[in-house]
């Protein structure tokens, strides 16, 4: 379940866009230019089922996303999708993990309050008895130089 973003949740000036998410879902996104720095020494960890529906989040995920754990569990992981992220990045992610391989990339994530944070994300398929039963995603602090490269590159992929 994923809802449109609400103006009352947003901090500061914002823009609006209707995003087409994986699985034919449409979502009204409200986003600002407010960046939340990635906290030193922490990992953001989540697991999803095979359809990308969140089944587990850690406390760092809750703190950085701005959502409660209750809002996150059973929501699609694309609840974090920022309009500045090219769809090609997520297609590559899905193509990679569906092959049973590990994916890694730099991602700009959207917070509930319309702000954003950059992460270095690694997603791996959870393989149990030879079957993919879900995915684990671990995000860590990215280097600023890599983020700057992505800020230049991603608009060219839109």
């Amino acid at each position, binding site marked *: 379940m994923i809802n449109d973003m609400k103006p009352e949740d947003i901090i500061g000036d914002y823009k609006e866009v209707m995003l087409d998410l994986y699985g034919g879902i449409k979502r009204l996104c409200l986003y600002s230019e407010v960046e939340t720095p990635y906290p030193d020494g922490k990992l953001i960890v989540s697991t999803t089922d095979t359809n990308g529906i969140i089944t587990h989040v850690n406390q*760092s995920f809750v703190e950085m996303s701005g959502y409660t754990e209750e809002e996150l569990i059973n929501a699609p992981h694309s609840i974090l999708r920022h309009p500045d992220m090219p769809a090609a990045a997520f297609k590559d992610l899905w193509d990679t993990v569906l092959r049973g391989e*590990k994916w890694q990339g730099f991602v700009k994530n959207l917070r509930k309050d319309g702000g954003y944070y950059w992460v270095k994300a690694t997603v791996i398929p959870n393989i149990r008895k030879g079957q993919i039963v879900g995915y*684990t995603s671990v995000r860590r*602090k990215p280097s600023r130089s890599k983020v700057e490269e992505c800020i230049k590159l991603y608009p060219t992929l839109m």
Partner: protein
Amino acid sequence: MTYRLTVSPDFTPDHLPGWYIFNTWLQKQLGEGIHLEMYNSFQAQHEAIAKDQIDLIYANPFDAAMLVREKGFLPLVKAHGLSDEAIIAVNAESPAKDVTDLAPGTRIAATEDPDVRLMGMIMLEPADLNSSNIDLHSCDTYVLVAKQLLRGEADAGIFLAEAFDDLSGMIKKQLKVLVHSQIGVIQHVLMVGPRLTDRRDELRHLLLAMPSDEKGQDVLKNLGFDLLINVEDEEMEFMIDLMDTLNT
């Protein structure tokens, strides 16, 4: 048949007698001969694992994937409330105030502890540092890592947080922590190998029941543990997946 127990070589030296006491207790409880072999290095321990010489291991999380997926080990228990965390520290006089102040070519002192080194390297990534552009100094102990910082032989050190806390006040005063990991889910696990898996339930029952009698409490105290708690197979798989994402 005599079985073999071993402990990840990064055990804290203060708890060495505790592992011998634990082994004596375990042999009595299980009614089996168990030899405790303490290896000096991860390499020596890995060689013994490769030769299928190990039946019980208090394993470093870095080795968990290999033990489970290649050698058929299964998890038993872990210590309650203890997780492996890493610290990046520098000499207190260092101009570095943040990890991002460290530049390529930085001399990094670290031990061979694989999970701590991995966490430390991840915390260096925001500075664009990786194994190819740092000068890594391998040390046998965390005290030697600290000494390299104090003597100016290394610019930054990677410590197990617990080992950093155990340094003397005098040494700690001369060091400055740049970053402390807060991961919370990476920790050592006691695991059972294929020759003993048919007694896994019995072993787990004995270990979980340790706090219920005075002798068991005493053994735990000597290991520096309050309590042992169950580790389910899926929890182990989750930690293996997590380590896999970090080891990239």
